[in-house]
């Protein structure tokens, strides 16, 4: 058996235990889930042409009726996350439709490979973040669907608040090569809140 990223292998003790952890302090690895990104001056126009509805303000995430979440990182840049139910096909379609010849001023970014995608959930999540991140992510100060592009455990990171039902929850994306390091930092920071790795099913149960 070869060594692998053991930290990412999660066998939930039980479905209930996972759901409890998710509500309190959970960490899920969504890195295998679909995501993509585009940037360049023509990005917003091109995305609109693909039927995505994105507002004016940057550093806001715009949920789509399809279940996608379009995180507008800058006036000229968007990160697109598959929803909780997948959207593999929708994101594939975006990636396949894009071409440097037809998407004027819009350039695809390989977000699946540049960024690890983690989901940080639970009532303790904002306080846990305050141990590794300087931006105030508490509910009253960081509205749902707000984005912070900042430093998390000294890594450049994208933090998107996207609650699961009434449970505070964040998407956390950072350099994929630093994934093991980031995972270790999070598990360490979560420990005092009885945080635990959770699997995707636990996320569903919060809805």
């Amino acid at each position, binding site marked *: 058996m070869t060594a692998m990223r053991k930290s990412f292998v999660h066998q939930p003790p039980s479905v209930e235990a996972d759901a409890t952890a998710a509500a309190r302090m959970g960490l899920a690895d969504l890195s295998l889930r679909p995501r993509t990104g585009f940037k360049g001056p023509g990005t917003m126009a091109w995305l609109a042409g693909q039927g995505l509805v994105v507002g004016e303000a940057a550093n806001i995430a715009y949920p789509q009726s399809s279940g996608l979440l379009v995180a507008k*990182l800058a006036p000229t840049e968007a990160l697109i996350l598959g929803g909780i139910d997948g959207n593999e096909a929708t994101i594939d379609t975006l990636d396949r439709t894009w071409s440097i010849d037809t998407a004027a001023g819009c350039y695809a970014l390989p977000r699946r490979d540049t960024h690890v995608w983690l989901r940080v959930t639970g009532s303790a999540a904002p306080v846990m973040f305050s141990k590794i991140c*300087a*931006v105030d992510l508490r509910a009253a100060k960081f509205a749902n669907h707000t984005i*912070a*592009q900042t*430093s998390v455990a000294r890594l450049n990171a994208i933090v998107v608040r996207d609650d699961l039902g009434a449970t505070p929850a964040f998407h956390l994306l950072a350099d994929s090569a630093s994934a093991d390091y980031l995972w270790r930092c999070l598990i360490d920071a979560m420990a005092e809140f009885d945080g635990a790795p959770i699997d995707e099913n636990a996320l569903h149960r919060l809805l």
Partner: protein
Amino acid sequence: MTCPLNGPRNISEFVYGGEVVTMPDPARSTDAEWADYVFLEENPAGVVREWWCHAPTSFWFIAERDTVRDEILRTYPAGEVFKDRIDFP
């Protein structure tokens, strides 16, 4: 410091990029003028325009800073100063 794109952040999220200076025409400037551009900064006691980069987003912008009071007066996107395409004929 307040990043025009990302809002107020710890100064540790930013990288300094030197004073905002205009590059002299490389084809016409004298050696001395060029050396001045490359090596010398004005460093005034007063308001200075500086390049700063928000590292997590690699976003470059310009800050006006009072070097006497070490106070940042204003930050804004580089496009306010650099409006037009620059070409070298």
